[in-house]
């Protein structure tokens, strides 16, 4: 699994084109940021974590829960 991650990252980084600072206006949009809505992201991860057997790699950290 770790080797697969390294291969994927290197392959994608190799495809990067230079993006100058004056070209990043669109990237600054709220719609382009995965961190723009932390409460919603956390609530969703918490709800799904209590209903599905898998968890992880969601980027959010929450407290432990005895959710049944």
């Amino acid at each position, binding site marked *: 699994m770790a080797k697969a991650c390294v291969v994927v990252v290197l392959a*994608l980084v190799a495809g*990067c084109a230079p993006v100058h600072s004056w070209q990043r206006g669109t990237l600054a949009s709220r719609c382009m940021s*995965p961190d723009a809505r932390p409460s919603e992201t956390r609530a969703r991860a918490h709800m799904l974590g209590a209903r599905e*057997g898998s968890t992880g790699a969601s980027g959010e950290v929450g*407290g432990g829960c005895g959710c049944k």
Partner: protein
Amino acid sequence: MRLQVALAFTLLSLHARADSRATAFVSAYSDDDNLTVVSPEVALRQELSPAVDVEASWEADIISAASVDVMTAASPRGYEETRHGLSAGVIWKPEPEITFALKYLPTWENDYSSHGLSLRTGYEWLERRLEQRLDLRASFDRVGRAGEPESEWRDLGLVAVGPSVSYVVDRWTVASVAYELQAQSGFQASPYRFVPIDWSSGTTVSAPERHPEWRVRHALALGVRHALTRRWFASAGYRFYRDSWKLSSHTADAGLQYATRQERAIVGVDLRGYYQGEASFYQERYAAAPGTLPSYRSRDKMLSENWSVLAGLRGEIGLGPVAFTDDVRVAARTEIYDQHFLSFEPLGGRRAFIFQLGATAEY
């Protein structure tokens, strides 16, 4: 050229967000298996200096349940309980490209307590086109039954490490890769669930649920966000999961958003599909020789084979400066969650409706 630079700075300043913010949020979940959860949250992040922020939050789950799990377990009348969680943390940016965030998260309810610690490090390089993060977390939990003395509760520990990378592919596209490794050790069954065992003699007995004490989880997620135009944005993601209990899952999601001029309003839709296989020791019905019990046995539908679809609609509006704030944004979201169990005898599926409402003030 000068016009392009000026325009870029103008756009960036419009989208620049203050580091101090206060958030009030509530989520309500209700399904046709008679479970209702209302979850309020209040969060605050305060800039102390250009390099240091502090943050704190309180959240709760107010639960009312008479689900099929509850009705077939030790408390057939259903139950109501409240879980509280706090967090307190500090974010330090010694350089603009470097971030350290440390957070403490205690949670408690009448039959569960948890003390968690998380550390996140972030570094942007290659002219800030590449951001790498490393998340480390650990928690120590205590699991018991309501009314039982805490001295009789059992331990559950967790450690997790999660590296992730996001990078700017071009001026319209950001891609990301995230991996997480979790290891859990301790009591991982439910103290309330009992598992029916069919003895070959014709008798059926009930035995307490028993899960392995070790669980190692792997999750790998890929994601991409793409600006289709200056107003339309699309996202897609996939996650693969596998653990030492031989449970595997696949998750795919996609979203579409539209933002008005200066992002005064944003609307969006998203769709998520999920499928998981069952854990190796999970059986819909257990059989054993008379007088014996399977080593591991479970009545947890979360370990059964199941699939689900989650569809959501979201709207957000910026109210602009209000009183002392720089901007106030209000967002609402509604979702429908359909889950189907393929190997869980008491329940074939459930449908849930989720509603969220939140407001954030930046200052």
